């Protein structure tokens, strides 16, 4: 599909192949049903001397013509359900071990991202908070804690195949692992007020080196302040 945004997450492929499975199976059913419907409407048009057949469809001999297709539909449904379940469990069944932890706060009309840094703990001195920019290293399990300040919002990153509503009063945990460095769009997918359209952030997936450099630059003022404090404390 040329319109589908490029997938850059580890589990995105599973979602895409689930989409493909559904497209192939229900697409085939749809095609057959439409062809039969249109063909029947054309073939059995009123003709002189050809009366309609009196078929009530009350006995199995006749009903099988719809029940056999229905059984095929049921089998396909079961197949789709099974694949859906495994994909869902892969994504939502739990979180892997964290390489990075980030707190995401959605509010009218922006996102703020707080990266826990090397210690993996939020609310410590090495946290980095950015507005509308989420910096993560490539190939790292990023665990997010999603919160909302005011309204419902929905974190929407098409390239990661990630969407999760954010609710005031709740912290929702989720995860992703980005596989390709680059910049990707983040949107809000839940109507959150008059500025909903303008709610837009960017995901920046860094190579490991570039992420370390960015982290060091961001932390430089903090580090020097700590050092100054330390030197100032000694008389």
């Amino acid at each position: 599909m040329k319109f589908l945004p490029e997938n850059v997450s580890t589990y995105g492929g599973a979602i895409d192949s689930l989409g493909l499975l559904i497209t192939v199976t229900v697409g085939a059913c749809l095609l057959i049903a439409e062809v039969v419907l249109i063909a029947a409407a054309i073939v059995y048009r009123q003709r002189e001397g050809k009366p309609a057949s009196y078929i009530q469809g009350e006995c199995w001999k006749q009903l099988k013509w719809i029940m056999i297709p229905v059984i095929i539909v049921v089998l396909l449904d079961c197949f789709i359900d099974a694949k859906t379940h495994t994909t869902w469990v892969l994504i939502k069944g739990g979180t892997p071990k964290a390489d990075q932890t980030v707190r995401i706060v959605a509010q009218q009309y922006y996102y703020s991202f707080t990266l826990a840094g090397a210690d993996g703990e939020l609310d410590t001195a090495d946290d980095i908070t950015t507005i509308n920019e989420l910096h993560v290293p490539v190939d790292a399990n990023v665990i997010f804690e999603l919160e909302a300040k005011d309204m419902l919002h929905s974190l929407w990153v098409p390239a990661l195949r990630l969407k999760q509503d954010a609710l005031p009063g709740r912290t929702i945990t989720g995860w992703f692992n980005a596989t390709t460095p680059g910049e990707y769009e983040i949107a809000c997918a839940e109507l959150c007020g008059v500025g909903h359209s303008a709610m837009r952030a960017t995901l920046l997936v860094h190579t490991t080196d570039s992420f370390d450099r960015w982290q060091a630059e961001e932390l430089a003022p903090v580090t020097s302040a700590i050092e100054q404090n330390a030197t100032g404390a000694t008389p």
Partner: protein
Amino acid sequence: MSTHHAAKPGFLGRYVFSTDHKVIGLQYLITGVLMAFIGGYLAYVFRMQLAFPGNSIPGFGELVPQQYNTFVTMHGTIMIFWVAMPVLLAGFGNLLIPLMVGTEDMAFPTLNMLSYWVFFLSTVVLLGSFFVPGSAFAGGWTAYPPLSADGYVGTPFWDGLGGHLWILAVALEFVAFLMGGINFLVTTINMRAPGMKWRRMPIILWMLVIAVLTFVFAVGPLIAGAVMLLLDRTLHTGFYNPAAGGDPILFQHLFWFFGHPEVYVLLLPSLGIICEIISVFSRKPLFGYRAILYSTIVAGVLSFVVWAHHQFIAGIDPRMSSFFSITTIMISIPFAIVIFACIATLWRGSIRLTTPMLFALGAIAEFLIGGVTGIYLGSSALDIYAHDTYFVVAHFHYTLIPVVFFGGLAGIYFWFPKFVGRTTNELLGKVHFWLTTISFNCAFLPLFILGIAGQHRRVFDYSAFPSLMAGELTMLRQIATYAVIVMLAAQILFVVNVVISFLRGPKAENNPWQANTLEWSVASPPPHGNFDPYPAVYRGAYEYSAPGRSEDWWPQDAP
């Protein structure tokens, strides 16, 4: 004959405050059709904004984001609650039930009149909300709090008037449909003509009864939810406010516990119309009457355990999702049976492609697309991607437009001769059908592609998203908009056809389509009191092309 026929009523009593089910049915139908034009105009305005963001819109002017949210909200509200419900359920239900069961009127005619006038009041309240300070409600037709309960941020009472009126209008409307629904049930259960056994009822009566039962069982939780929302808005209670110990997700559960059965409340009457028409114009018995009936009952029951598929990513416990994913995908089975039965009815028939038949076949052909795209969204894992994108918008328009517009128009063309006493123009009707079908597909197929591209919903302007501003996607948005304009313009043909036919169409016979059900055995239009004498019923509704008869139809009341 009951006493209310004794005194001859004047103009007001006959056409305005009438207790005659046919007048009330027409009042509902006409109000619904007029509201459809308002809903369509709103769609025109916001589609123009999406195709040509920031440009002044011919026939409106410049649209600002707040108005955009209002228009999207009111478009959804009007089309579901003020078009689909009054046309399909109240309109056709009132017109057809007493005639099809073979009685003079509804069980409670005065309650029936009250039902329409409460509905009319709700319409006035809803449309009036456009003109209050702050304009009409802008929180989305699903009205999710906290946005819909903007009291939390301290909005003064009068500034939120549009939202209060929106809740009031919806509540009034539900009161109207509860009164109408009780009438439907009592009339169908108690007032059937002698010989009209349950198994002999036209399937549309079953569909209406099951739709009403579904509505009655589902509406309670929504009313509770709406009352709590109104209290949150006006008295600043905290039912949905986490800061006050409430929970916004509670509303979503209450809303969708009603909202999903509601989809079937709309679908069933329309499927009933389609079944009747397909059987008549195939000159064949409806294939698998019992299979359709049992499937419909199963679907009605199942519709109460699928609601959380609207909330896969809303923050509910992930372990709930697989259950709702399975029930949702399983509900496709009863509907597959009904649709396959309709197709099987065509098999070896003698098909007349009249205007109502074209619309009925078109409804099935298009509804199939809506049905199968529901599988994508019912699959919880895929819904992570598809939720709140234009894929959803395309999907539900592919279910609702075939059901409401194709099914509704099929019914109007089919029963027009009966209730107006004049015949519509077939050529105009067919042109109307083809223009509507082609433009409908051109308007909504592009939305599937936009959804796959990740375009999210309820957005005023995509300029903040370069990937969504790509040339091809912009072009798709413009194609969709042009097609909507053609689709709306095509409805002028319908209006012209109906108005000219009403004024000077050829007089209709009693039974122009040679159909079996009881309404065709009386004059067109049926007189006040319908039957004289009361009919007796000797057989089911679908004895077409029965072997050993010279005629290919066999009316239910023919001895």
